């Protein structure tokens, strides 16, 4: 039951990363990292999740901005989605990411929401967000995956006690671009491939990413591997703004002489993690980029899909979006 009234907590506003790392180490699971707050504030206002201490990261300058590196770009985790959408660097080389960022939520949310927050956000399953005691919330059932569960927005793949999906629009784009995530904690820095950053319920049902309580995602690196490739991003949602994707698709491909030489294609909204469509990649690699290949690719995308009671539409929708990615990119 939504409470709509934020409870008291201690607020910390560190101005540098080392200060923030001290705080996350000190508070561990009792601390709550906040960037744009577009995920966090819902939880706190609804009193569905609680914390003793909120650690506001937004004053840490070193986690902001977009920098060119020797082999690509590094995007500070606190860079807003609007900054990504408008960055000429990103638009020139990685239009796929700019396009995905431009379709997140609404302009107001993009103005405060960050790329780090967008990829780290929690599941949007309405039962879970409503504060119900499901597996993901530490309970012993899944309310969505029942004969009567209202699971229109839930997964086609990878159900494992939980049927929530990855809600992010930028995550599929980052996986398609073979990005990597820079994570810091008191022990130092580690870099994780975007594809491995997201985890499903079979790995840990209470987390969506590898981030632990004392970790801070500081930056995202995009290698030049897919710079200026042929891109396709599309999001299908109920409304043209604000809503999460029913299904989204992000593809990066190298096309030469009408032939798809290489491709990474990733779908959101169909699995707890951004789903890399390896089957599709295998089907189209080396084939002509035409309507026939596109149709074949679309049909292959849903192999292994197991629909729930209310989401079978995601099968043709995923197939169509994959077909469009190959056909229209």
């Amino acid at each position, binding site marked *: 039951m939504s409470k*709509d009234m934020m*409870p008291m907590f201690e607020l910390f506003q560190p101005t540098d990363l080392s200060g923030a790392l001290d705080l996350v180490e000190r508070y561990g699971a009792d601390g709550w990292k906040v960037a744009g707050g577009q995920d966090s504030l819902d939880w706190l206002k609804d009193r569905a999740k609680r914390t003793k201490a909120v650690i506001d990261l937004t004053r840490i300058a070193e986690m902001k901005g977009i920098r060119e590196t020797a082999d690509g770009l590094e995007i500070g985790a606190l860079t807003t989605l609007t900054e990504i959408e408008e960055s000429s660097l990103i638009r020139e080389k990685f239009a796929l990411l700019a396009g995905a960022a431009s379709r997140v939520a609404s302009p107001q949310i993009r103005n405060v929401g960050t790329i780090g927050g967008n990829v780290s956000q929690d599941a949007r399953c309405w*039962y879970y967000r409503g504060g119900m005691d499901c597996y993901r919330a530490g309970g012993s059932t899944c309310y969505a995956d029942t004969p009567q569960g209202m699971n229109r927005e839930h997964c086609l793949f990878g159900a494992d006690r939980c049927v929530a999906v990855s809600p992010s629009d930028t995550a599929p784009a980052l996986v398609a671009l073979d990005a990597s995530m820079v994570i810091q904690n008191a022990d130092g820095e580690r870099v994780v491939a975007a594809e491995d950053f997201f985890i499903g319920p079979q790995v840990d049902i209470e987390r969506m990413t590898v981030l632990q309580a004392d970790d801070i995602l500081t930056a995202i690196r995009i290698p030049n591997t897919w710079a200026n490739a042929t891109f396709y991003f599309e999001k*299908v949602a109920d409304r043209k703004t604000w809503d999460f994707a029913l299904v989204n698709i992000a593809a990066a491909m190298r096309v030469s002489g009408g032939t798809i030489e290489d491709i990474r294609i990733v779908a959101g909204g169909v699995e707890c993690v951004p789903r890399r469509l390896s089957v599709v990649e295998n089907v189209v690699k080396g084939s002509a980029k035409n309507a026939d290949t596109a149709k074949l690719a679309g049909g292959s995308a849903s192999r292994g899909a197991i629909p729930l009671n209310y989401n079978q539409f995601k099968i043709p929708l995923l197939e169509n979006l994959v*077909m469009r990615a190959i056909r229209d990119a």
Partner: protein
Amino acid sequence: MAHKLLGKDFTPPDIRGKVTGKAKYAEDFRVDGMVFAKMLLSPMPHARVTSIDTSEAEAMPGVLGVLTADDVPPGQGANEVILTNTPHFIGEPILAIAAIDETTAADAIEKVKVEYEPLPYVIDPLESLYPGGPDAREGGNVANLQIPLQTVKWTARDFAEVEENQLPMSGQPVVEWSYGDLEAEFEKSAVVYDETFVTASNSHHSMEPRTAMSYWENGKCFVYGSSQSQSFFMPGLAGLIGIDSKDLVYIAEFCGGGFGSKGAPYALMALPAYMSKKIGRPVMLRVTRAEEYYLGSNRAGFQGRARIGFAKNGKVNAVDLYLVQSNGPNSGFWDFTDAPGAVSICYQPNAMRYRGLPVLTNTPPGGPQRGPGENQIACAFEPFLDRAAAELGIDRVEIRKINAPDNDSLFDGHQNPVTSAYQRECLTIGAEKFGWNEKSKRSRERKGSKVIGVGVGQAYHSAGFAGFDGLVRITPDGILHIHSGVGNLGTYSYAATARIAAEVLNYDWEHCVIERGDSRKQLPWNFMQVGSNTSFTMGRSYHAAAVDAKNKLLEIAAATHGGSPDDYELGDEVVRSKADGAAKMTYAEAAQKAIEMAGKFDGSEPPADINPMTTASTAALAGSGLIGVAKDNYEINGVPPALATGFMMIELDTETGTFEILDYAGAIDCGTVIHPMGLATQIKGGAVMGIGLASKERIVYDPQNGVAANVGFYQAKPPSYLDVPATMEWGAVDIADPQSPLGTRGMGEPVMGCAASALVCAISDALGGHYFNRTPIVADMIVNAVSGRPQSHKPLQVATF
């Protein structure tokens, strides 16, 4: 007739406050010593509270008091209550706690221990109608306004005798009427359709939640609330608080949206008054977005079945309609009786039978939402005209004209007359504004995965009442004070209709002030601002009061300068002799003279037939100027109709199930146009809401747990700015209604239903004549239909994705 003010744009006086942020809504008020209340809401859809322990909460510093169901009047029948020990829906308030601040109150609520005994609950009316099925209330499963709580069960045979997914029509109804020889009319029909359909419930989600603040002072109860209505609201609100309405001071200057849900008094508004009385402090109850979802009511859903027969020439011969209304657990609203009336008037069938009943459900309480019943049924019925048009080879606008009502039309079970009706003209104007002849040729035009769909829709709502009072006052400074007790739901019709008084008195609008929004401003007895009625009802009341003031001006001039009142006329805020230009007096002078003459002139002797509220207001104003006060005693014979037409062109993407609305034009038959800009805004805003009704908004409940999926604003999916056309066209018939003194009648509701049904028809047009028999039609339904898959929901399923 050329008017000085009517038919011209103006800036309503409350716009400045809204634009600058100075407008004060209920939650903006603060008074000395004010504290905050928070509510504990039921987590169960139907239960009995067996124990409440507030000791830990009450021991918290800053907590000032607890209010439970034992402190407020008990419920009667299926009427809504302020607090309950028998919650009938998740979100129903059990108790409230007041504290020095809101966070403390919310923290204290979490310390309360409530034990519940769960009771059977029901989301789907058909489950409740089945023999032995669960009832939403212990006292029965059927109730509505004017229908007492009772138990109705159909027989297993009723269910067994129809095909699967077909609504039984043999089950016992609660409301039933018919006219004409139904079966004979079906017999001679060239085409007959028989369809089972569902229209979803959807939440009002008013932008301003129903916050209220209250305190007691010198024996009076002050309430600052959010309502569409003012004077008519007061007796009911006073009754909820348990006082006489003369002891109630009610302040409601602005309303951040109500859409019907804040027209009549509602129980929650009385909660702060009870808490304030108990703890002796002013109490503010700020209602949150989630609470507004649970307590802000929603449009009733229908499970329906219609048989409709068309003659070869397109005329609707017969309609046989059955509706089962998802009512919510309380008395709800009469959507299910308004809907067949709309069918009857819009299509003028030679014979019609209607049967229906409202079945209680453990979902948020039903309440009137813009075009209650009429707008849902438009979405179910307008597609029939398209199907018949295609089958009989008739243009889709033409078939609507063939069946359209006019001045001689009768409708509903009582075969009531209308005051006037020009739906054929309205269809013509809408078709012209839209460019139907050219655009309809683009129907089903394909470009890749995209296909054009074109649709036309219609809707109706009754649009006026009679018999309320008008009160105007000219003060010795020459200003015309137009006292308005109708309310301000946000459409500016309170201001547009006030100009009728100024028009009659030949006033410069700059010299007029509208007194409103606060019962201390001495307001007359006016009806609620609901049901598209203001333009007609207030038009009559203001006219009556202004004519009274005019007569008094003429009498005062005659008394001052000699001769009879007939020798005088109104000029530019002067009353002057028709013959002798020198014999004249300004309105300011006449007002001063009225005070000297007293009696009827300054309100000291009000007319006998006005409502006691108007009498009291007149008495309070007596001696302050020239008072024009009168009851609307104008003749009325028939129902003033508001009839609307909508035309829409979409481009639907068959691969994603999404669509772009390329064009929209709406037209209205609402009598004389008072305020073109206000009218245009209503037609366009109504279309936006209609787009939501047709393609986005619905309540969704998990039937196993009785919990709601669409509590938040983003989950409820009202259309965004990007989901509606950037520009829309509009038009109006603009023919005066003969039973409204200056020709005005209402229009606010059907401008939603015509757009909703136009969109439903456009989607089906794009899909080559695929009919969903369900609203809203959302992307997943379109994707399933195009890919040849069955829908995930069963045809009669309700409150589902």
